[in-house]
Every structure is written in structure tokens, then in C-alpha cells.
């Protein structure tokens, strides 16, 4: 009899499985769109209309950075809370409730996006994951996002309830590190999502429903980035958590410093939000001074990541030395490179080091003239969310799947091949994207080939860059195929009694070394709120003062060229029946997803 997670928390394991499978489904869809885009842009294979490219890109962005990442992280957060507090969730129905809300929400959004491929309905949402007004999506798109986000809010409530209940029983204990990380991340998330909630609920949704005439594009854009920067930490912090609580154990050692890990998460809580304006360095209508403040905050936000780099490497080194590693760098050889969980996380961390560099460039205010909205940026975030996060998630899947299914991993060697392939593919793709960006090749463009001019490469050529991007994309797609083979193969395995115990890394310097104040979540939240108020009040007031709360009269896109008099009845009927169908589809989808799980 083993003592895996599923043996300890069978009911919670089922929720986590549901979250994981939803996440993987999104990853599969996103991957398909990813390779279509790659081959289209580079000109190697174009089978869709270039106008549809943007529907593909919207789907790629939303499915990967909203559904794949967030479904996965709610899974591991549930694991982290239950394992580290050693108690099941307070109310399982509530847990399934938030999961269901997220699933319904993303289904609505997904359907609104995918409907853009057919002319059968006039529903479409090819607005990319940033949905900048005056681009306008169908109301379903916004509504779905709202439900999804509200689902994550309830998930947070669920975890806080566990913690409050635990605290009542253990009044004098330190918050266990994994729970601490979950709670600080969620606090950050609550603050961050206020921006997108305001953008959608006050402006974009009423506007798409025709309740208000127009919006202030700079205002909704600024509210989006209020959320859009911290959302990257919402993806990253779970990956960091894996590096802190799982990686040291997998390396054969212990976490170097629990106190510093807490400091890092506190820094993320207080610094993640007041930086979003760094995405708007080149926006007219925002004073240079505000941009400079955002840059300063952003640069200091490097600190927790730099500290993480040291702590994580030191923890790996501890493992390597316990395994007999010697020398300044010789210990690297003693690490368990053949273990896919380790190799995947270590390679993800290595890529994150490179991403850290391109991120520093992105943060540098005036250097943004060089890189803003070029392919460089795409190269950058395929290293961050596309590798540091995605590869870490895939790697830890090889540890979590046996835990939550009670089945042996289908193949460790396929898993090892998968993570290495991802690393190699991403090296090709993202390196070439960075270089392309420096030549001025734009992102988000179906055919970056122009009539009037060409991009000039000092070294190599655009054709060579395209070849590397396409090659990288193909390798990444292959890697995904291997990943899904393993997920399906594992699901088809029988139950095993011989699984590793559910546990996480011990610490060399434990919580007893951490000042008590670090666990004062109220204090850090208050500081975070104050910083946000400082950073955003004046820019927002100035934007509203300039452009008005509801902005100038706008030409919205998609432009409605329909003769409303004659077809409104028809359109209404189509819309209503589609919504009805969607709702049933959503329900069925949830039921199916839930049903897949034995």
C-alpha cells in the first residue's frame, strides 16, 4: 500500500485530475494553433486565409496563457494547500463549484473565439488575448472571461478557508511554505484582477452589448495592463513554488532557505501590480514621469527573481553534493539528469535565466523603442511563460500524474525525450524570434513580408531566421505529441501500489529562521494596496481627465455593416439559439471532463 496523494486525499485528487485534464486539453488546442501560426508567418505552409490568422492567434494566446496555465496552477495549488496543511478541502461541493465555473467560463470564451472561423454565426472574438478596444468581441467572450476569473476567486476563497480552519487548530504554527506561497499568490491575484474586472464589467461588456456608446481606449488598455503584468506572476509563482518545494527534493537535497523563499513571495505580492505601465512605454497620453516610475518598480521586481535564482541553484547543489558531487562546477554532473522531472525543471530554469535577460531589456524604458511589439517580445515570453512555466508544468506533471491518478507514469524515457525536445525546439524558435525582433520584424502579423521594403539582417538573413523558427516550432509540436502520449498512456495504466509518497522538500534553514512578520499577510496586502494606489491613481485620473471616462466617439471593429432593420430578428434568433446550444455544450463539456476521470 502506497502513501501517494490519491491515497491521502482521494476526493481532492479527482478535482486536481479534472483541472489537469482541462489544462492539457487547452495545451493541445493551443499547440495546434501554435504550429499553424509558425508555418504561416514564416511562409512555409499557408492553408488558412491570412485574415483568419488572427482568430488562430487569439485562440493560441487565450487557450495557452489563460486556460492551460491557470487550470494547471489551480490543480497544484489545491495539492499544495491540502498537502502542506494536511487537511482536505472544507467543502468539496464548493471546490467542484469553482472548477465548474472556470470550465463554463472558458468554454464560452473559447466558443466565441472559435466561432470566428465560420460564417454560420456572426459571433467572433478575434481580438487577441489583449482585446484592446475599439476592437470588439462578441459579449460571450467577455462574459466567459469574467466567469473564469470569478472561478479563480472562489478557488482562492477555498484555500483561504482551509488555512483559516487550520490556523484555528494550530494557532502558534508558522504557515507551511507551500500554503504561504499559495496565499500570497492569491492575494496578488485578487488585487491584479480588479483591473481586468473593471475593464470588462464597467466598459467592455456593456459596450459590446450596446449599453454604452463608446469607451476610452487608453483607459481600458491601461486597466488591462494593470492586470496584464501581474498575470505573468500568476503563471510564474506556481512555477517558482515547484522550484522551491519540489525541485530540491528531486535533486536529492533540501531547500536552501525557507525564509528567503517567503521574502521572495512577499516581494512579488507587493511589487507585481504597480508596474503594468511598463507595457505602455510607447503609449501616447501617458506622461513620461509615470513611465519612469513604472520602470523603477519593474527593475526592483527583478530582485525576487534574482534571489530565487540563487536559492534554487544552491538547493540543487545541496542535492548534488549529497549525491557525491564535488568541485566548483563538477557537482552539476551529479544531478539526476535522467529524471524527466528534474531535467525538465532544470532546463526550464536555465531558459528562465535567458528570459530574465530579455526581460531586463524590455523593462528599460527608452530601449523599448527598439523592441516594443517586435518579434523580440514573442521570443521573450516563449522563454518565460512558454518555457519557464510551461516546461516546469509539463515536467512536474510526470511527478503529479502518478500522485493524482495512482498509476505509474507510462514512460520515463519518453518523458525525458519530451523535455529535452522542448528545450531544443525553444532554443531555435525563441533565439530566432529575438533576432528577428531586432531587425524590426513585427509580432502579431500574418504575413510579415512587405511590398515597399525588406528587413535587413547584419548577420544571417530573414530566410535563415524563418527556417529556425519553423524548425523550432516543429520540434515543439513533436514534444507536445510525446507529452500527450505519456498523459494518455498513464491514464490507461492500471492502479499501482508502488508509488512514491506524497511529500515535498525539507529545508536547510527552516521557517524558525524567518521573522514572524513575514507571515503577516494583512500587512503585506496593505502595503501592496498602498503601492498600487500610488502607482495608478495619477495615471488613471490623468487618462480619464484627458479622454473622458467613456472616451470619444469611436469606430468600432468589427464594423457592423449589416442592415439591422431587415436582419435583426434573424440575428437575434440565431444568437439566442447559439447561446442556448453553447450553454448545453458547456454543461456537457464539464460533464464529459468530469466523466473522463474514473
Amino acid at each position, binding site marked *: 500500500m502506497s502513501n501517494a496523494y490519491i491515497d491521502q486525499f482521494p476526493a481532492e485528487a479527482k478535482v486536481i485530475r479534472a483541472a489537469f485534464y482541462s489544462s492539457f486539453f487547452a495545451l493541445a488546442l493551443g499547440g495546434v494553433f501554435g504550429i499553424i501560426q509558425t508555418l504561416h508567418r514564416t511562409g512555409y505552409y499557408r492553408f488558412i486565409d491570412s485574415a483568419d490568422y488572427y482568430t488562430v492567434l487569439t485562440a493560441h494566446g487565450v487557450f495557452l496563457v489563460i486556460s492551460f496555465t491557470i487550470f494547471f496552477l489551480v490543480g497544484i495549488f489545491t495539492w499544495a494547500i491540502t498537502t502542506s496543511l*494536511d487537511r482536505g478541502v472544507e467543502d468539496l461541493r464548493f471546490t467542484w463549484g469553482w472548477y465548474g465555473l472556470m470550465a463554463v467560463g472558458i468554454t464560452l470564451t473559447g466558443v466565441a473565439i472559435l466561432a470566428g472561423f465560420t460564417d454560420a454565426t456572426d459571433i467572433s472574438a478575434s481580438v487577441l488575448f489583449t482585446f484592446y478596444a475599439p476592437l470588439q468581441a462578441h459579449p460571450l467572450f467577455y462574459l466567459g472571461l469574467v466567469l473564469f476569473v470569478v472561478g479563480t476567486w472562489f478557488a482562492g476563497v477555498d484555500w483561504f478557508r482551509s488555512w483559516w480552519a487550520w490556523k484555528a487548530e494550530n494557532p502558534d504554527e508558522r504557515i507551511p511554505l507551500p500554503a504561504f506561497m499559495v496565499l500570497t499568490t492569491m492575494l496578488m491575484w485578487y488585487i491584479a484582477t480588479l483591473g481586468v474586472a473593471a475593464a470588462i464589467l464597467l466598459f467592455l461588456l456593456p459596450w459590446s452589448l450596446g449599453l454604452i456608446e463608446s469607451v476610452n481606449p487608453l483607459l481600458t488598455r491601461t486597466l488591462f495592463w494593470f492586470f496584464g503584468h501581474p498575470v505573468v506572476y500568476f503563471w510564474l509563482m506556481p512555477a517558482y513554488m515547484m522550484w522551491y518545494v519540489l525541485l530540491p527534493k*528531486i535533486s*536529492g537535497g533540501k531547500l536552501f532557505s525557507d525564509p528567503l523563499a517567503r521574502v521572495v513571495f512577499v516581494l512579488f505580492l507587493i511589487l507585481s501590480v504597480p508596474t503594468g505601465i511598463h507595457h505602455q512605454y510607447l503609449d501616447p497620453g501617458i506622461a513620461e514621469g509615470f513611465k519612469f516610475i513604472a520602470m523603477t518598480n519593474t527593475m526592483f521586481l527583478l530582485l525576487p527573481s534574482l534571489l530565487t535564482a540563487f536559492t534554487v541553484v544552491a538547493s*540543487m547543489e545541496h542535492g548534488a553534493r*549529497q*549525491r557525491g558531487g564535488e568541485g566548483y562546477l563538477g557537482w552539476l554532473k551529479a544531478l539526476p539528469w535522467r529524471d524527466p522531472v*528534474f531535467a525538465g525543471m532544470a532546463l526550464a530554469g536555465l531558459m528562465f535565466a535567458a528570459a530574465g535577460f530579455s526581460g531586463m531589456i524590455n523593462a528599460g524604458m527608452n530601449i523599448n523603442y*527598439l523592441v516594443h511589439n517586435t518579434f523580440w517580445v514573442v521570443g521573450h515570453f516563449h522563454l518565460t511563460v512558454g518555457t519557464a512555466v510551461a516546461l516546469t508544468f509539463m515536467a512536474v506533471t510526470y511527478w503529479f500524474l502518478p500522485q493524482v491518478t495512482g498509476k505509474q507514469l507510462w514512460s520515463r524515457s519518453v518523458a525525458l525525450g519530451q523535455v529535452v525536445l522542448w528545450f531544443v525546439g525553444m532554443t531555435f524558435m525563441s533565439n530566432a524570434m529575438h533576432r528577428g525582433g531586432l531587425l524590426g520584424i513585427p509580432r502579431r502579423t500574418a504575413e510579415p513580408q512587405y511590398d515597399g521594403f525588406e528587413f535587413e539582417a547584419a548577420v544571417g538573413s530573414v530566410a535563415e531566421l524563418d527556417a529556425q523558427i519553423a524548425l523550432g516550432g516543429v520540434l515543439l509540436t513533436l514534444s507536445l505529441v510525446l507529452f500527450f502520449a505519456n498523459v494518455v498512456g498513464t491514464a490507461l495504466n492500471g492502479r499501482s501500489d508502488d508509488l512514491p509518497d506524497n511529500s515535498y522538500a*525539507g529545508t536547510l*534553514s527552516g521557517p524558525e529562521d524567518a521573522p514572524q512578520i513575514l507571515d503577516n499577510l494583512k500587512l503585506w496586502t496593505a502595503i501592496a494596496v498602498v503601492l498600487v494606489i500610488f502607482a495608478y491613481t495619477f495615471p488613471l485620473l490623468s487618462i480619464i481627465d484627458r479622454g473622458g471616462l467613456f472616451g470619444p466617439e469611436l469606430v468600432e471593429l468589427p464594423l457592423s455593416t449589416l442592415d439591422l432593420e431587415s436582419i435583426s430578428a434573424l440575428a437575434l434568433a440565431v444568437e439566442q439559439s447559439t447561446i442556448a446550444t453553447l450553454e448545453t455544450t458547456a454543461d456537457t463539456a464539464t460533464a464529459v471532463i468530469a466523466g473522463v476521470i474514473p
Partner: protein
Amino acid sequence: MSHATDESTQIQDPDQPTDSDQVREIGHDEFDPVGALALIGLYFLILVFLWFFMYFVEFLGNDPTVVSGIVSVVTGGVGLA
């Protein structure tokens, strides 16, 4: 059941392939992360070098650049850096 207390989470599982390779136990006071220091030092040097390269060669070498109308006369040589 794993317990939240520090000791239990440190229990290493014998089935984990990684743990079977452990040859010694290194405690907090004996551990000196020189390897981490070496790697991070290397990273630091790379960052500094690349930062200067990106700013002064790639960025300033990519002129023209947006300058303020007034200072522009003085900085005719921005791109030369």
C-alpha cells in the same frame, strides 16, 4: 499521511530513484554553496556584458531615435555611441 511539521516532510522516500543515490548527509552548517556562487557570478557577468551590448550597440546603433526637440541640437551624435 504527510504531516505539516518540518520533520515529516523531510522523510525521503526509498522508492524515489533520486534518493537512492544519496551518498552522504550534508547539514546546514557544513553546506557551502560555492557552486551556486560560481554560477550566479558567471550569470552576473553575462548580464552586465549583454546589457551594455544591447544598450550601446544594438539600441544606440539603431538610430535615428526619438529625442526631445530642444536637446536634439546638442546630441547630434546619439547614434555614434
